[in-house]
């Protein structure tokens, strides 16, 4: 089955692609004819064209073929869809992705797609254009990576990351460039038209360790967090550095060899630092703006998350405009503002932001890899030079290893926790090149660099080599070297509190020793942040839960509350929460033996859920009758309307949803699935029961209905009335009869009110109730259903004795008539109609 599904998916892919290719060929033909017509024949009209010319029309067209109107966005959307379907194909084949990393599979699929395009067009119509890559695909990936960056880890390893990102990158660029040039001079590559500066430029563009490729591979391997942050942080920052280096060397190449003197070189170095640090600084400025803005965006919560994305993109473009490092700008923007915006924004907005960034980042990542594959199928770019290509691959690996080990050796002299040998090995091996290198290579100017295509081709080979081959071998290598993997530790209050004690103790000891230690910076920054930065960038109430211990406490409470709700939702309802006296719920098994006030009362803003639980008293509360721990300011108000809420909740849980309110947006697709036979039967039984009650009452001539039922029925009926725009008794076809007989019985009025609900039948989707039907909650439902089982006829056919005397044309109403005319016992046509109803059930 799975194979079949995959095959089908692939077929879809082919079809889409073919459609695209055909569209493009058609389009090209169109263009050709369009171009040709004026010159060749001189005719003024082009009737065979796409119909988009404002030519005189003979008659009003009903529909027209407007391909050219939608062409570009249509192709873009189709390509995006194609790429994403490719990712889906990858994900479906777990056997392949467990061996080859996903990025590698995507590139290979890209080859296939590129082959199809080539076959259809005889030319590579689609390829990754640097402008698209740098403006539309890269920013969201970087923003996502930096926004989700583990902040503390990043900043505590910032020194090492910066050293690797700046020095190692420069070293790689210089050494690869010079070594290649040396080999060229030595005659290893035959006759090429490349000068030393161009070799350096090539070295620079190849020094970019690509975050996209690195994340894609390392996330699958789960190495320990220090190693991860070192590789990841390095790859992120080193992109910025590479771009800067690239532009400096590019400028040198444009200047030409003879014009470069000491002054220009010094200028180049200065420009390097200005561009890199200026970009980072710009990012910080944008982070401050964003954080301050999110202090007030809660007024437009719907688009709150969008602000971050747009401002992030703006920071990227602004840096680009000022010719500063755009990648560094957006990186620092994301890293710096994440803490404050997460605190300022509503939890929902944070989730939205996180997910939308993930969607965008993963989407464009997929497209990048696919297009890296697609771009390869182009014979124009392939200039083969075995010596050049092999030497390039050799040098980038060798020099990466050398630089990495040397720098790590220096770093280890001062690090508290030295980077182990295996970690260094993995780090060096993790120097994957990716789309940034390709984008930069594609940016090369053919006029200045005659051998551009050779460089482009070589870059592509390097990318394939590193992403596919090194990617495949990475996992076995990590396993074989027994690299320390990441251990997932649970969030505990103990952990948080102890961490705090550790920090305090260590700083105190540093003070006693009278020396500035590692913690000096952290501590002073924390102090400064608390005093000024938070004041400036955080909302007042957000500042409150800033404390880590308190934050952990809050998170844990939320988690518990959520689990609690989920658990109990399965078992039935949460109605018992209301009953304070009966709220001895064991929250966790291990603390079940503990008594009062063990669990904090959880005040959770559970607005995610349909029911409004404003507090969950977990144990019987001795010390405090009302929940005391609350992160919510509104709690005070909530307490007051507590009673109100109880009623609301009972109503909400008891009511069947009317058809009218049934999934307004999706009613068409969900219509049939919502019909729950159990529920329908339940309504039927309830109606029958009520009818029986009223019948008995009428027979005995006493006041009807035991209390339980009447209580509920009142609520139900009131709610039904509320749910309807007009008075149900008015609109009800049998309103008159109903009034006649319901004068003495509340339950019969309920039956009448319930009736339309049953007749509509299909619109019953109260999830709470469905659960209750499966496992009835003892609190509310059991008494009813029990009485129903023991005393009531289960099937409509059993009701012969109660069936209505009057004839009616409305078949489904015959049951209702039982209620309307209990006194007269003339069974006329009860069997077939209710019976038919029964079969429907």
């Amino acid at each position, binding site marked *: 089955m799975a194979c079949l599904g995959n095959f089908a998916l692939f077929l879809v892919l082919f079809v889409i692609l073919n459609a695209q290719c055909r569209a493009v060929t058609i389009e090209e033909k169109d263009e050709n004819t369009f171009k040709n017509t004026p010159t060749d024949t001189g005719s003024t009209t082009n009737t065979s064209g796409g119909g988009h010319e404002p030519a005189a029309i003979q008659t009003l067209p009903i529909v027209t073929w407007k391909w050219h109107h939608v062409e570009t966005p249509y192709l873009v959307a189709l390509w995006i869809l194609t790429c994403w379907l490719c990712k889906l194909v990858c994900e479906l084949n777990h056997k392949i992705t467990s061996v080859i990393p996903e990025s590698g599979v995507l590139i290979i699929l890209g080859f296939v797609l590129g082959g199809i395009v080539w076959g259809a067009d005889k030319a590579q119509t689609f390829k990754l254009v640097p402008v698209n890559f740098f403006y539309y695909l890269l920013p969201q990936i970087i923003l996502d990576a930096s926004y989700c960056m583990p902040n503390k880890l990043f900043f505590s390893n910032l020194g090492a990351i910066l050293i690797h990102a700046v020095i190692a990158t420069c070293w790689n660029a210089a050494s690869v460039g010079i070594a290649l040039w040396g080999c060229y001079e030595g005659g290893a590559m035959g006759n090429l038209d490349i000068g030393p500066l161009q070799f350096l430029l090539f070295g620079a563009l190849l020094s970019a360790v690509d975050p996209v490729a690195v994340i894609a591979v390392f996330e699958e391997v789960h190495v320990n967090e220090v190693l991860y942050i070192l590789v990841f942080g390095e790859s992120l920052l080193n992109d910025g550095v590479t771009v800067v280096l690239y532009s400096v060397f590019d400028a040198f190449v444009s200047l030409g060899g003879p014009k470069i003197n000491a002054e220009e070189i010094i200028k180049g170095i200065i420009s390097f630092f200005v561009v890199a640090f200026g970009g980072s600084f710009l990012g910080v400025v944008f982070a401050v703006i964003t954080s301050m803005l999110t202090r007030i965006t809660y007024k437009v919560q719907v688009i709150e998350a969008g602000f971050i994305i747009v401002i992030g993109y703006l920071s990227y473009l602004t840096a680009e405009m000022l010719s500063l490092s755009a990648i560094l700008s957006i990186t620092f923007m994301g890293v710096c503002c994440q803490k404050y915006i997460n605190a300022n924004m509503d939890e929902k907005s944070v989730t939205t932001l996180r997910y939308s960034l993930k969607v965008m980042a993963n989407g464009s990542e997929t497209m990048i890899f696919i297009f890296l594959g697609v771009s390869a199928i182009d014979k124009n770019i392939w200039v083969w030079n075995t010596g050049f290509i092999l030497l390039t691959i050799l040098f980038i690996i060798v020099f990466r290893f050398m630089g990495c080990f040397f720098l790590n050796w220096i770093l280890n002299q001062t690090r508290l926790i030295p980077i182990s040998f295996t970690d260094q090995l993995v780090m060096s091996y993790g120097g994957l090149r990716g789309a940034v290198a390709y984008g930069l290579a594609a940016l090369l100017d053919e006029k200045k660099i005659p051998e551009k295509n050779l460089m482009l081709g070589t870059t592509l080979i390097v990318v394939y080599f590193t992403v596919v081959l090194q990617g495949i071998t990475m996992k076995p290598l990590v396993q074989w070297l027994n690299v320390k993997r990441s251990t997932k530790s649970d969030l505990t209050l103990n952990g948080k509190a102890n961490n705090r*004690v550790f920090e*305090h103790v260590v700083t105190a000891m540093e003070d006693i020793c009278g020396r500035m230690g590692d913690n000096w910076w952290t501590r002073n920054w924390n102090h400064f942040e608390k005093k000024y930065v938070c004041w400036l960038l955080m909302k007042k109430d957000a500042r409150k839960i800033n404390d880590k211990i308190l934050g952990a406490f809050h998170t844990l409470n939320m988690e518990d509350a959520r689990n609690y709700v989920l658990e109990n939702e399965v078992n039935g309802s949460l109605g018992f929460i209301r009953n304070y006296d009966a709220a001895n719920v064991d929250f966790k098994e291990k603390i079940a033996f503990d008594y009062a006030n063990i669990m904090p009362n959880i005040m959770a803003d559970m607005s995610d859920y349909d029911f409004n639980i404003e507090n969950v008293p977990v144990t019987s509360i001795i010390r405090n009758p009302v929940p005391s721990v609350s992160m919510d300011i509104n709690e005070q108000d909530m307490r007051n309307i507590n009673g109100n809420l109880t009623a609301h909740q009972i109503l909400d849980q008891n009511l069947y949803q009317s058809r009218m309110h049934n999934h307004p947006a999706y009613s068409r697709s969900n219509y049939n699935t919502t019909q729950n036979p159990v529920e329908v039967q339940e309504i039927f039984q309830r109606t029958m029961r009520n009818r029986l009650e009223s019948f008995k009452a009428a027979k005995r001539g006493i006041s009807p209905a035991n209390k339980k039922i009447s209580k509920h029925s009142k609520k139900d009926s009131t709610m039904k009335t509320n749910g309807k725009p007009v008075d149900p008794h008015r609109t009800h076809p049998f309103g008159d009869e109903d009034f006649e007989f319901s004068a003495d019985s509340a339950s019969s009025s309920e039956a009448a009110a319930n009736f339309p609900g049953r007749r509509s039948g299909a619109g019953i989707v109260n999830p709470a109730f469905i659960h209750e039907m499966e496992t009835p909650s003892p609190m509310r439902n059991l008494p009813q259903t029990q009485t129903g089982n023991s005393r009531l006829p289960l099937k409509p056919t059993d009701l012969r004795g109660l069936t209505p005397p009057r004839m009616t044309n409305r078949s489904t109403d015959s049951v209702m008539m039982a209620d309307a005319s209990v006194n007269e016992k003339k069974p006329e046509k009860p069997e077939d109609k209710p019976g038919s109803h029964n079969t429907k059930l």
Partner: protein
Amino acid sequence: MGSTNSTLIKIPNVDELIQETGFSTAHIIRLHDRFKELDKERRGYLCPQDFGAIKGLAINPIGDRIIGAFFSPGRETVDFYTFVKILAHFRPADNSRPKESSSPEPINSRTNKLKFVFQMYDIDKDGKISRIDLLKALRSMLEMQVTEEQLDSIVDRTIQEADLDGDDAISFEEFRKSLEKVNIDHKMSIRFLR
């Protein structure tokens, strides 16, 4: 070199100290200088007041407890020997030295580091972190905007997390268990003492 030797001679039991703590002579000398700097009245020992004069400690929320760790119960002074021994807790563990099973556990071992933290909590020195202990410790570490009720709940929950035998207190064993996954050596070490 001459000055180094002359300083070393002045320190009593210096060889034993090096043996016990694992500090190098350079460390001992540096710590000795610091000790003398703190000992403003040149008495040869430190009083709690001397520690209180350190600016950073004064603003440290659990500074008092940390100072208290230097003084064994009932004593008001700490000499250089004890001073160094306390600081030796924070020397990073060295993996390079061969482990001799016969030698006593070094001061900077995991257990000893944990014990040090444990006594930060255990004010009444009964070997258990009781509810009251934890309440006080957390109160001093949390800001004032945390209400008493919140604090109570936090303390309850914290104890509950670690308490395995249900006596509403955390024993050292339980404390150690709760920190099993944490790399204490990384968190309780000072780089320049290596």
